[in-house]
């Protein structure tokens, strides 16, 4: 079933042919993060795809994955171009290395999940919180509910985890 929704005043839609994306976001809507695991080589993959990037098998099953990891890199947007984000600067786009499958299948690979730095209820984080986050910051996943069958995975600082002394941030504040 297709999805038409609004998020921050921005139209989001998924056609009913988007089987993989619909399944991915359905799990997110249940606040239960899942990724595809290849039926042949067992490797997880992100974002959803129609075949395995490592072994080309077209068979996969959805498996639950814990949304915990560390920031691999980021950008901090001060001049938004999308109208939806103009009232929310500065906002952070994080690339997060999941703990699961880190360094596999090769040393420099990881499941790198995109998300904004958010608050526990899934709203975009305020500037004071943005200043605390950099490369290495431990984060955990929360969800922004958008519509039935559609929630966006987001990241919050994992207050329970041991944090690096100084996460790496761009030197100019």
């Amino acid at each position, binding site marked *: 079933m297709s999805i038409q929704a609004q998020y921050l005043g921005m139209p989001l839609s998924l056609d009913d042919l988007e089987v993989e994306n619909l399944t991915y976001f359905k799990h997110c809507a249940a606040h239960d993060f899942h990724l595809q695991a290849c039926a042949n080589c067992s490797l997880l993959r*992100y*974002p959803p795809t129609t075949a395995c990037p490592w072994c080309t098998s077209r068979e996969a099953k959805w498996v639950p994955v814990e949304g915990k990891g560390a920031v691999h890199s980021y950008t901090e947007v001060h001049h938004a171009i999308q109208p939806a984000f103009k009232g929310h600067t500065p906002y952070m786009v994080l690339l997060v290395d999941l703990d699961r499958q880190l360094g596999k299948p090769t040393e420099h690979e990881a499941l790198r999940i995109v998300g904004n730095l958010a608050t526990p209820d899934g709203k975009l984080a305020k500037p004071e919180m943005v200043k605390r986050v950099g490369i290495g910051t431990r984060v955990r996943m929360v969800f922004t509910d958008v519509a039935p069958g559609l929630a966006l995975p987001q990241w919050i600082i994992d207050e329970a985890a041991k944090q690096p002394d100084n996460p790496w941030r761009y030197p100019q504040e």
Partner: protein
Amino acid sequence: MPLPADTDVSSPKHLRDKYAIVGVGETTYTRGSGMTTRALGTWAVSNAMLDAGLKAADVDGMLSYQSGDSTFAPFIAGDLGIRLNFYMDVFGGGSSTEALIGIAMGVIEAGMCKTVAIFRAMNGFSQVRIGGTGARSAVPVTSDMLHSRAYGWQSAGQMFSPTFMRHMYDYGTKPAQVAAVRAAHSNHASNNPKAYYQKRVTVEDVLASRVICKPLHLLDCCVETDNATAVIIARADRARDLKHTPALIRGVAGRVCKPRIDMHYQAGPISTVAGRYAREILWPNSGVGPEDVDVTGSYDAFTFTTMLQLEDYGFCKKGEGGRYVSDGTINLGGRRPNNTSGGHLCEGYTHGMNMVIENVRQLRHDVDDSCPKGPDGKREHTYDYKEGGCRQVKGCEVTANLGWAMPGTGSAMVMRRG
């Protein structure tokens, strides 16, 4: 420099020096062209034909690249009275120039046509904004874009920044080192009467300009302009009958990709870009290496893209790109100037074509600056690179263009003076 002839017809090397860029042309670089991309494209292609000394009947192939923001080749050909034996309009922006030059060589080699004009016509300021603002920023977010645009991760600067940031983290690259790219290109543009921005800026100016998205300041980003640009490809033996010293094509690499190109951040190191792979095609096929190159055209959508590519194509050791772009090497008068026209940061935004045009003119020893003209109508270059002066590189024999689509995709080309 003399380069060895290669007779190994069992490898791509046998195409070395067999094809040439025989004509180059562009419109003026403006913000507010006041005309259609069809009119711009027609203007640029006709300028390239005039430059080569070719008539409509001499051109029978046409290629263009665009992303739904331009006019297709048959309209440009029709306007110029060109009957085509081959044409193709390809989807894409940056890194297309070198890739399409390779395609042009291939279709001529296949006997499909004899001479190919390649153009890029765009109103990148007044119609489809290259920075992604305006209408493009407000289109509905659908399908796989939910994994990027729904997070405010959309423009080129936003999409590339995690790569730039990680390079700083991995190698200690400093903002001031990268800002030196803009300072160098602005110095070059100050000697280019065609450049949109001709004012020189300093590293301090770049770092003091407002932050767009970290690590990019306003002046780390290229200019958005309206313009069309064109080059004409023919066999080198035909080129010798034409007006200019031909720019012989030594080798090309086209749209070479990193692994997982649909979401290249999954495969690292993310501070490495596609040039790491493209160089393995470019240098062996060209029969030269970075040390042989006199002038580079490393794509400067952003200051960082120039630095990352120069590093991954091997002009310096991995991780030393920051030093390489800030120690004077890439400046006019330095060992290996980059983007002597001012490039995308200052001359105008063309998705790569103006950097190829500039290197063709460098190889002709005939860049268009403010040096006095001699009796033959050609500039008598002073090699004094002060503001408003010369920008010809003395004795330029070999150039390299390094085209960029995104961190995961790039194209490249080596040319030499014929």
